[in-house]
């Protein structure tokens, strides 16, 4: 299986995701520089976290206009799975591959901490390593993760199973307190209509070995391998 990680100026989780992918998939991904006008052959595209272009103007906005993103959009349209984590999620919304926007956290502060997520749809290539309703613990680390969209879009997201992860408390309740960044409907991760593009604010790549305090993130990458086995 071949995977590609897109690296923008200011990406800073590219190495972490590379390590996580390599551990799960057994082979190292291709690192693709933002200026590339062509993508290698690939079964999965990952847009890592970080501060592409310093998050200047709007998080993800400047990266979304990089040359490589045209290619990413083409591949996504052709059905190649695209996973955007944190800044990657922001870039995917700015590039129009996912609906809505990620605004400044409600408390206006950067938040880095472990959070609980409820897996609401385990039926995607990304989430087959989980079971529906499972509660997992992985960290968030962002300044702009406050998901916002219009009512209509929200309805569609809900009815079409596009809301994949929601912030919850330890017991799985979707409380206001557990919704640290103020996201609409506790949204932590959504897919596109075909469930082939996933954007999520939490960082699964930071919970892939026990020394990091847990392995709930590893299940995502293991699941990807299973569902994409080629």
């Amino acid at each position, binding site marked *: 299986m071949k995977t590609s990680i897109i690296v923008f100026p200011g990406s800073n989780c590219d190495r*972490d995701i590379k390590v996580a992918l390599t551990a799960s998939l057994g082979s190292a991904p291709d690192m693709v520089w933002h200026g590339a006008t062509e993508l290698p052959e690939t079964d999965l595209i990952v847009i890592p976290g970080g501060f592409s272009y*310093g998050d200047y103007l709007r998080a993800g906005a400047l990266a979304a206009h990089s040359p490589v993103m045209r290619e990413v959009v083409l591949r996504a349209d052709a059905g190649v799975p695209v996973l955007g984590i944190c800044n990657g999620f922001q870039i995917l919304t700015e590039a129009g591959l996912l609906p809505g926007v990620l605004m400044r956290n409600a408390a206006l502060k950067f938040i880095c901490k472990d959070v609980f997520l409820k897996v609401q749809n385990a039926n995607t290539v990304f989430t087959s390593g989980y079971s529906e309703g499972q509660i997992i613990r992985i960290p968030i680390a962002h300044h702009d993760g406050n998901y916002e969209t219009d009512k209509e879009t929200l309805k569609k997201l809900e009815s079409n199973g596009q809301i994949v992860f929601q912030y919850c408390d330890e017991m799985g309740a979707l409380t206001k307190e557990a919704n640290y960044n103020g996201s609409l409907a506790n949204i932590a991760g959504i897919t596109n209509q075909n469930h082939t593009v996933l954007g999520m604010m939490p960082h699964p790549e930071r919970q892939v070995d026990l020394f990091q305090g847990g392995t709930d993130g590893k299940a995502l990458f293991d699941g990807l391998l299973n569902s994409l086995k080629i």
Partner: protein
Amino acid sequence: MTEITPEVIANHGLSEEEYLKILKIIGREPNITELGIFSVMWSEHCSYKSSKKWLRTLPTKAPWVICGPGENAGIVEIGDNQAIVFKMESHNHPSFIEPYQGAATGVGGIMRDVFTMGARPIANLNSLRFGRPDHPKTKHLISGVVAGIAGYGNCMGVPTVGGECEFHSSYDGNNLVNAMTVGLAPCNNIFYSAAAGIGNSVVYVGSKTGRDGIHGATMASTEFSEDNESKRPTVQVGDPFTEKLLLEACLELMNTDAIIAIQDMGAAGLTSSSFEMASKGGVGIEMNLDAVPQREEGMTAYEMMLSESQERMLMVLKPGSENEAKLIFEKWELDFAIIGILTDTNHMVLRHKGEIVADLPIDPLAEASPEYDRPWVETPQATVASIVNNTSPKEINKAIKTLIGCPDQSSKRWIWEQYDHMVMADTIGRPGGDAAIVRVHGTMKAIAVSTDCNPRYCFADPYEGGKQAVAESWRNITATGAKPLAITDNMNFGNPERPEIMGQFVGCIKGIGDACKALDYPVVSGNVSLYNETNGIGILPTPTIGGVGLIANINNCASIAFEKEGQDIIIIGETEGHMGQSLYLREIEGSEEGTPPPVDLAAERFNGNFVRKMIERGRITTCHDISGGGLIVALAEMAIASGIGCAIEIPKDTPTILGWLFGEDQARYVIASSEVKDIIAEASAQNIKAEKIGQTKGRQLTVGKEITISLDELVQLHQSWLPNFMSQT
């Protein structure tokens, strides 16, 4: 050209004597550019003129030290051709004037110091001191400083894993922001700043030069006054995005063999970087300032030489490699300009617009900078503290709650949750413990890092306080199971021209030096920040110690959290019940009296080595050193960290109950284990005091029969002070 009047000289912070020395060195009157260069090079900040004499007395060597003080950062070896590069630096004055940018550029500056040596930064720490919480400026300063540190470090993708944050009225007008960066480099690919190779190109890379922070270096060396606060110099704005590109570009270039020497432009920017490179290499430099990438129009030579624009580096490249280097910097969208060449003249010659605007001999300026043996007086011996012996269970119960929730002791989670402390995915001991633990990427090794200082101890007795800061650092590192390797020190003091302040400085240095020697814990880098004074009121002496240790195998390390119920709790070390300068005295009795606890360095060493062996052998996984607040606060923190309570008994023969619970005797640890008998036997065989005091159990902290506090309440008290404080208006 500006005329050099006595007023101009004074405005540049140069004394009459120093000016005479300039005349002697160059044999004529300097022009304004030259005067500016002298003034920044001879400022306290760059020349260490008040402190040099004393800094030289610090021990700096050990078999594992690759590079001690004098370079951009210190370096220790950790085996497998790997080295740890680290340093701490203050950005006190800038953060008081503009907290966000001041703190942010402090973080940016220290990271450059580390990656300029070829190391990838793997951890940041920050030691913060603010004025009393109810001072009108305090909240504003905290929120700006923390956001600034977060803004810069998070964007760089370097985890901020630890630090300190305490409060005292002496910092009302001078907060402290000490930032530390720890990096990892291959031993065989370390870069230094000595220029070499007559005729080689001098290259400027990074951001363009603007009129930022001109005179920042001299500002950092003068006392504040009401008046000074309004005469704000231009503040530098940090651009962490550009620094991230600079980091990646430098590391990429360092993988080729193009670089002969490299130096970041920190305080006094182009001036100090070029003079340092030339002076260390024993060469001259001829620079063409027209080639310097400029952000603004009409910049003068004076402005370019004194600008403190951030995110810039100076390099000397191997002949013929310029193009390869240029391509790398262009790929990372950074400026790259050849601005000079190395000469054999030992002079710095600056050209601008077809004229020679400065011609100065390098060595006399860089090395023969002033050095003062400032008069100092010994700090008088503190009196012994008096204490009201309030030992009723009710009072003790209340005292424990007060201490665990007081500003200094309360959890700093509100701060570290604004820092990305997990990026790079190697943080295996997160903030909140004694030292943070960061895995050496791709290995089973890890480093433990911590910053420490107790300024009240240092004020009462600079010598013991200096010793204690080092001992506490060593203990915090040890408590994780790491072998302490070396420290960086950040000496924050008041006005050194006052003999009593100089006396504090001298006392602390002597204490630090003795402790470092006794513990094999040398100083490999550091920074001095003097004149932390407002209207004649100086800060408490604050020699912050940043320590680094090595964990050989992460399967064997310890955290402060209890592992499970039913384990025995053991205290290692002698408890005498020293209450002078304790947190208890300050918080409960409102007194900052007495002598600090004396530090028995031999006991520190024995007890620490014993504890570390136990952790290394996998015998214990729970360990916490005892410091501010004494034994009971340490136990409360262990319970809070784990969600597991404990019950302890005060030994019958205890001479002082308060002292036993709250005393701050040094060289002590709390450990928890299921093999209590063996451990105590082993300890006593080595003449180390080890005593069982209780057991982990339940969800309360219980002392004897009458004192019980629920864990929920402790957690609530510990966690709530800072967030509540910050959200109050």
